[in-house]
């Protein structure tokens, strides 16, 4: 850990003193740090794509360009479930139900316009996921929305517990058959299955109904697995059952017209203390829906801080990249968004988006 810090600090120091050209400082009226804390009159110093420092009365080194922003500064949002950068059929090889070592991190086109629309909506990282079909369709990956950066090419082992993942003309055709097939995989584990079994790889449990969640909880307990459950809009109604499992929940994409019962389910997750983030299922869904979904939950009673954490720091933890993104903190990637007002107000506009310290959207000077 110490070595890592030193390794991080050394190039930063060099960069600050020698190369102000790769540096920028942003001074904003209000900064949301992503961990629930708010800082007024905040300055964030960015050096070589990383956050070199953050503070209320930070002195900016001479020669470093300073952006004065009359509004809010936040870290970029993280969309936790999607198929950006390739056609959705590319996100699963449907030749067989079990292909646990297939990597979606290898299929996406980093120059796809999907990523441009994501970063335009303030999304700087995305969790790409195999299509939830079959039993073990592959490995998830975390990518940046700019810079061609594959942040993590093995984020989760995807395991499918939803009936939607079954096909009628191949084993398994049933939920019981799927459970049996998964048990067989974990009894003779290899590759990604083995890494998950040993605790080195979290799982993404794909589900759709509350009863699927109960099967996930039982299986995860039986096999000692961690990770997150995605796809169950009413998961919050059984938050008390989920809580002891320590599994997180990825809320399925919320859009205009969302059922209030589903929104209140998110509130229940927060009240029970179940960690949660927001899925998007882009590019089918508009990237703007990510923030909209969180805002609609706030309207139903979700604490705004919990909502924002779910879009940033908590999402980063769920994606396994909290050491790189999700908070405004020294040493983390400079993925930043400048807003005209409160980020959870739908009237607030995005004025600039930075990924790895590089402005990728917006024209704010």
């Amino acid at each position: 850990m110490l070595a890592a810090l030193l390794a991080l600090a050394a190039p930063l120091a060099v960069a600050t003193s020698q190369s102000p050209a790769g540096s920028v400082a942003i001074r904003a009226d209000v900064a949301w740090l992503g961990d629930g804390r708010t800082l007024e009159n905040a300055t964030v110093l960015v050096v070589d794509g990383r956050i070199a420092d953050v503070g209320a009365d930070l002195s900016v080194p001479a020669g470093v360009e300073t952006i004065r922003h009359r509004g809010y500064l936040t870290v970029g949002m993280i969309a936790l479930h999607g198929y950006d950068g390739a056609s959705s059929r590319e996100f699963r090889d449907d030749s067989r139900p079990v292909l646990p070592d297939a990597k979606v991190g290898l299929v996406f086109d980093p120059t796809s316009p999907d990523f441009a629309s994501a970063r335009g909506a303030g999304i700087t990282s995305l969790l790409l996921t195999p299509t939830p079909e079959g039993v073990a369709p592959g490995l998830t990956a975390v990518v940046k929305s700019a810079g061609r950066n594959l942040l993590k090419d093995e984020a989760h082992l995807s395991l499918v517990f939803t009936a939607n993942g079954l096909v009628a003309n191949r084993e398994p055709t049933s939920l019981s058959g799927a459970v049996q097939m998964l048990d067989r995989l974990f009894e003779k584990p290899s590759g990604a299955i083995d890494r998950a079994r040993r605790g080195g790889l979290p799982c993404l449990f794909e589900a759709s109904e509350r009863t699927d969640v109960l099967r996930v909880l039982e299986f995860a307990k039986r096999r000692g697995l961690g990770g997150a459950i995605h796809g169950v809009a009413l998961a919050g109604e059984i938050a008390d059952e989920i809580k002891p499992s320590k599994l997180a929940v990825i809320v399925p994409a919320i859009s205009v017209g969302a059922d209030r019962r589903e929104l209140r389910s998110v509130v229940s997750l927060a009240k029970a203390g179940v960690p949660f983030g927001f899925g998007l299922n882009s590019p089918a869904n508009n990237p703007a829906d990510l923030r909209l979904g969180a805002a609609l939950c706030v309207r139903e009673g979700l604490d705004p801080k919990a909502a924002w954490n779910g879009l940033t720091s908590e999402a980063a933890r769920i994606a396994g990249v909290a050491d790189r993104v999700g908070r405004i903190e020294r040493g983390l990637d400079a993925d930043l968004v400048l807003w005209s007002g409160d980020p959870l107000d739908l009237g607030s506009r995005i004025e600039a988006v930075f990924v790895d310290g590089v402005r990728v959207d917006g024209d704010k000077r």
Partner: protein
Amino acid sequence: MKNLVLGLTAVSTLASAGTAFARDDKPEARPWVIWADRVYTGTGTNYEAGMVGTAGSKISIVAPSRGGDEHDSDQVLRCFAVTSGLIDASARIHNGPTSVEQSKEVQASLRVADTLDPFSIEWDRQVRNGVTTVLVNPPDSNVIGGLGVVLKTTGADSIAARTLKSDAVLRGSMGTEPSRGNHPAFRTPTDFYSRRPTTRMGVEWEWRKAFYDAATAARDTSRAFPGSDQLIAALKGDLTVSIQAWATQDIRTAIFLKEEIEREAEFENGLDKPRFFIDAAAEAWKEPQLLVRARVPVVLPPFPVGGRTRDNAFMAWDVAEKLRKEGIPVALSSHGSTEPEECLALQAGYAMQGGLPFENALAAVTSVPARLLGVADRVGTIEVGKDADLCLWNGAPFEPSSRVIAVIVDGVLRYDGREKADAK
């Protein structure tokens, strides 16, 4: 979350035409005192006027009324009659096609419990009709579809927590249902539906092959296969086999299979003690001596409109009474029907129209299925120490003019339709 649950209850209350579920935030067992003009315990002892008391999840007292001691309080329920909660030995509250694995004909190791949805509204329907315990089987698309589960129809939001007996039966089917759709109508076979069996013969052959393969695996563990343990347990009689057979040729096929296992040398070393019961045995009345000879109980399907059931079997009002006279244990069932006139309570009424005495009709929906399913130590009769699963009636039980007005399961008032009954 609690408000959400209440909201959901409100919705289902509307859907069920004004019935009110006594589903509190977290309903808990509390002591209940039920005063009834008739207490039908199912043990042979009935009371013209009596009371049943509960403590925790169990029945704590059953007694005749002494008169004058009937104080009203919020722990007192009054009704015309009280019976044990009804038991359906063929309930089929499953998830449809995703509850049965069709990639092979024989899937003896798969548990239907892994596929059930505790949040399905079907459970509420059962509770409203007085059914408190059910056997749920995998759908009969396979020859042997897997393991059925006996569970309560209400309680915790988890199948495991409601389960009375997991792996309660090994379930399979004779007749035409397992082969339906297996014969390619044209073109060449493309997937596992184009396969054996395509006939009754083929279905029976799969049954026999499964048991012979299991007997081989019992002698030589290197020949074990997925499901062989369950099939061996069935041969030993440790796991009851529930076979669906509607028509008489399918009932006799099942019985001949059992007798072959009891007779043939391949099944020595304790593998010759299978316990079968036949589900949906509509035509059991045609050759009842076979059932007597093989000591095989039956579960009857709901009485069919027009007299004909699936597989073109014929079933008349007096089937249950005919079988009773032969000494064959008979349970009645809804066979998973969601038609209001095919609910379990009415089946008992129909059997009474066919001549079955009330006590036997009561047993056919309580104690007989409890014994068939191996849960008679917990449910099926009103006795001190048994589960407090009680069904309260506003008139003579099973009569079309009577209604279930309240249902207690594990000591918790899970359905309270008294206001609805008063309004009638």
